Each structure stands twice: as C-alpha cells, then as structure tokens.
C-alpha cells in the first residue's frame, strides 16, 4: 500500500511551522505526524495528514511551496529490532531511504514508520513479500498517533 507525504519548503525563520498548522487547522485537516529536516537557513517540513490532496491544495493556495510524494507507512512491532529488520531488508536490496520517521500507535504495541525511498514499487513489493504490513492513506488517517519518534 502506498501512502502520501506532504513536504513544504520553509526558510528557517520563526512562525513557518505555525503558518502551516494554521492553514490546516482552518481546513480541519488532522496532522498524523510531522518532522522537520533543516540545513543552515532553510528546511523542509514533512507532514502526514488525513487528507493529503486537500491539504496540498490549501497550502498551495496559501502561497506555500508544497510537494506531495509517495511514501510507505510500514507497521512495525514496537519491540527491539523491529525497525532494524526493516532497514536491513531495504539495504540488502539497495533501496535508498531518503527520509524516515515514525510514531507509536496508542493502545497497540506497534509503531508506524514512514519511509520515503528511491524505488517505491520495488520497496513495496519487497516489504509485502517479507510480511510487513503497509498502510494506505485511508488506513493511516484512521489511526490515532501517540507520540512521534525521529529516525
């Protein structure tokens, strides 16, 4: 299953994340996970939301530079070695991870890991063959995140 991640280009200055969340709140779009990667003076805000297409639209209308990309949301048992199995698998098949972050599911002993990779179809097939569960956008929007962890 393939899911969607929103990425927003943002200069490192106060209020950029707040501006993003304000737009989404107004549109009643729920944020499932967020992570920010930064360089010196600029960065990229990554979001998992319950309605990616509508969120992209709203943020673009608000003048932001947005990119919607396909990611894999992989369910991982919340126990030692869970994440390692995933990354080792991708490594042996030469799939590059561009970005990854995750959150633990409330009430489950499970975590969802969002991975952005360079060969998404290959990675998806690989994961399914090896028994990993991946969530689509709908399934992802239905879950309640507990807390985030950064890769």
């Amino acid at each position, binding site marked *: 299953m393939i899911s969607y*991640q*929103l*990425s927003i*280009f*943002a*200069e490192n200055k106060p209020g950029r994340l707040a501006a993003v969340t304000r737009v989404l709140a107004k549109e009643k779009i729920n944020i499932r996970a967020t992570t920010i*990667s*930064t*360089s*010196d*003076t*600029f*960065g*990229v805000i*990554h979001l998992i939301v319950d309605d990616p297409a509508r969120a992209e639209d709203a943020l673009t209308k608000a*003048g*932001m*530079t*947005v*990119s*919607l*990309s396909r990611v894999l949301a992989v369910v991982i048992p919340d126990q030692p070695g869970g994440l390692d199995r995933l990354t080792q698998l991708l490594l042996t098949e030469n799939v590059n991870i*561009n*970005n990854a972050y995750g959150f633990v599911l409330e009430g489950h002993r499970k975590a969802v890991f969002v991975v*952005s990779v360079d060969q998404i179809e290959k990675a998806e097939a690989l994961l399914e063959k090896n028994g990993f569960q991946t969530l689509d956008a709908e399934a992802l929007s239905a879950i309640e995140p507990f807390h985030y962890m950064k890769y």
Partner: protein
Amino acid sequence: MYWEKEIETMDREQLERLQAVRLRETLERAKKSVHYGKRFAEMGLDIGGIRTDADVEKLPLTTKDDLRENWPYGFLACSRDELIRMHSSSGTTGRATVIFHTTRDIGAWTNLLARCMYMAGMRRSDVFQNMMTYGLFTGGLGFHYGAEKIGALVIPAGAGNSKRQIQLMRDFETTAIHIIPSYALHLSTVFTEVGVDPRRDTKLRLAFLGAEPHSEKMRRKIEDLYGFRAFNSYGLSEMNGPGMAFECPEQDGMHIWEDNYIVEIIDPMTLKPVPDGEEGELVTTTLLREGMPILRYRTMDLTRIIPGPCPCGRTHRRIERIKGRTDDMMILKGVNIFPIQIEKKLMEIPGVGTNFVIILDRADYNDSMTVKVEVQKEFFGGDLRQLEALRRRIVEELKSDILITPRVDLVEPDSLPQSEGKAKRVIDNRKD
C-alpha cells in the same frame, strides 16, 4: 618633490595647448581603428575641425559596450605586431574588455605610475611590497613597473597569504606597500594574531590604496592601525589602470594627469558637461595611447573636480574620492562584479526561481557576499538533499564566474522583491 616638475606644474594655458596637440594626434590614430573609423564616417566628423580641448564635446562617447562589441581588436590603431602586452578588466568572464599596449604605451603608463608614487614620497631607497594580484589585472604589473622605474627594491608578493606577507615585510624591511583597503584592514587582524605590531615591528611608512573605493574614515583608520601615510589611487583598465589619478602629500583629492588624459565630468542623464565642482560621471580621453586610443570613455564613476589650485603646486586638476557608480557595478575584495553576471549565471541553473538579492557585508574587516535565491516552485520535490545540492551548485557556479565564494541562501518562491521594475538587487551593508 616632483618626478617631472615641468609637466606637473605646467601652467594651465600651456597644458591645454599640449592637450590640443595630443588630441589631434590621438584622433589621427583613432581613425585607423575599425570602431572609430566607422563612427567618424557615420558622424561626418572632420578631425581638422577639432582645434582645442574644448572641441572634445564634438567627439563620440565610448562605453564598455562599445569595447565589448568590438572585441577583441576593433579598437586597435596599430598592427598587432606592435603590441607587447594585454590586460583585462577584473572579475568579468565571457567578453571581458581587453586593452592592448605597445612598447610606447607601457613606457608612458610606467612613467605615470612612477610620477604618482614619487609624488606620494617613494624614493629609490624604499622597499616596495606589491600586494596586488599579478596577471591580467592592471594593479600588479602597473605598480611593479612604476616602482622599478623609480629604482625602489620591488618585492612582487602578489595577493593573499597574509602570514607570508608579514614575514616578507619583516625580513626585507618593507617601507612601502600597495594594497586593497579592505585587505589592509583584514591584514591588521592577522598582525594581531601573529603578535606583530605593524607600527613598532615594521619599517612601513607609505601605502598606496587602490582597486577599491573607500572613505576618508577608512583611510584614517588604516593609517592609524599601521602608522603610515596612505594615498588613494584611482584608475581603470580601459584607461591603463592605476596611475591615472593619485593623491599628493596634501591628501586632498587625486591629481588626474591631464597631459595623458582629457578629463570631463558629465551629467549621466543629459550627457552634457557640468562645471568644475559639480558632481557627475567622469569621462576621459587617452592622449598618449598609441595601440588602443579611447575617446571620451564613460567610466561610470561618480565624482567631481575640486575647484582651485592645490597647495602642492601641481596644476593638474584634482578629482574627489569616487562617490559611487552610475551603473550597478559592485567592488568586492578588489574584484568588479555586476549584478547582471550573477543573474545570468543563476538563470542557467535549473531549479532557480525568478528573483534574487545580493547582500554585501563587512565583518572583522572581511567583505562577504550573500546571495538569496528563490527556489522554483516546480523544482521542489520535498527533499532537503535536493535543495542542498542546488545550493552547492549555485555556490560553485558563481564562484567560477565572479572569483569570489558567495554564501548562498535558498528562499521561498515569491518571497523576494520582483525583478521587474526598479527592484533593489544589491544591499550594501558595508560601513567603514
């Protein structure tokens, strides 16, 4: 006290007669060049009708674009066999303006530099360290030849390598230097770093500050840091380079050598001459250049003639420090940079948006350039590494073109002022 007393103190009337004679010779030579041959014919100009230096207004103005369009040989007034040297304007690529010199041209230019340095007080007993880039840039070889002509011991140190510069000064007891003012400020911090006091531990007594406009305050600061007297030098490669105008011991304006140049100040809008004392654009005509005479060259530099005689006794008029430019040229670490160069380079790079801003700063006596560049909306793929790669590419591409490593910041699309209209592309925060 004078290198050539007769010429330097010649009365105005006689000087103007000399100019008129040399102007006619210049026109005869200029006519042989492709560019002026064509221009004179188009204008129906009768060279015989140019009798006094006041007639100079009838001559066509020449711009940097003319030089570029006639690149490389369209201004030559002699055969290529007679040329012995070429120089080029600094910091530009592609069709940089190229100037050619004959043996006599180099001789005349060398003499002017000797005249300037002698006027400021340099003698054959001096040890002169030339801390300018040698090569296509005129500041290196120009001063080098002039100092040798005076008979000083010349250390051709070249630019950069601050610790070695200081070592040379100490080992060979340098008394005079030629240096870019912003570098002089920077070098003083290196002196502190290595624990050498330029006032106490060196024999420095004279400095020639060139290649970069600077304020009176900055000069005083440099003099104070080093304990020497610093003299302002003006010139541009199209007019030979340094040696064109220089300060005398009065340090009140630069004598511009009117036996070698006809000097005009024009209103850059109307292109009409303004009276002495009024500010405008400096326009000069070469009077002794054989290989590549240039008439009424628009320097784009803003200044004014200081009216009245100079107490030093020289009759050649003085120009004030350069106040600015009529175009948008920037000078950074002695390198001339036009915003259009940066714009051209940026627009060739995929992923770059429409607008950019150049910010010039000075910190710890070091000048730096920051270029804020908008990212193209469509280029953004959500990946930070892609942006980092773009940023690095912009730095590399600009560095190869302007010879200075800028800091590059990527900013959001449409966050900078629009490039159309009169947007301010350059923000100069440098104070003295």
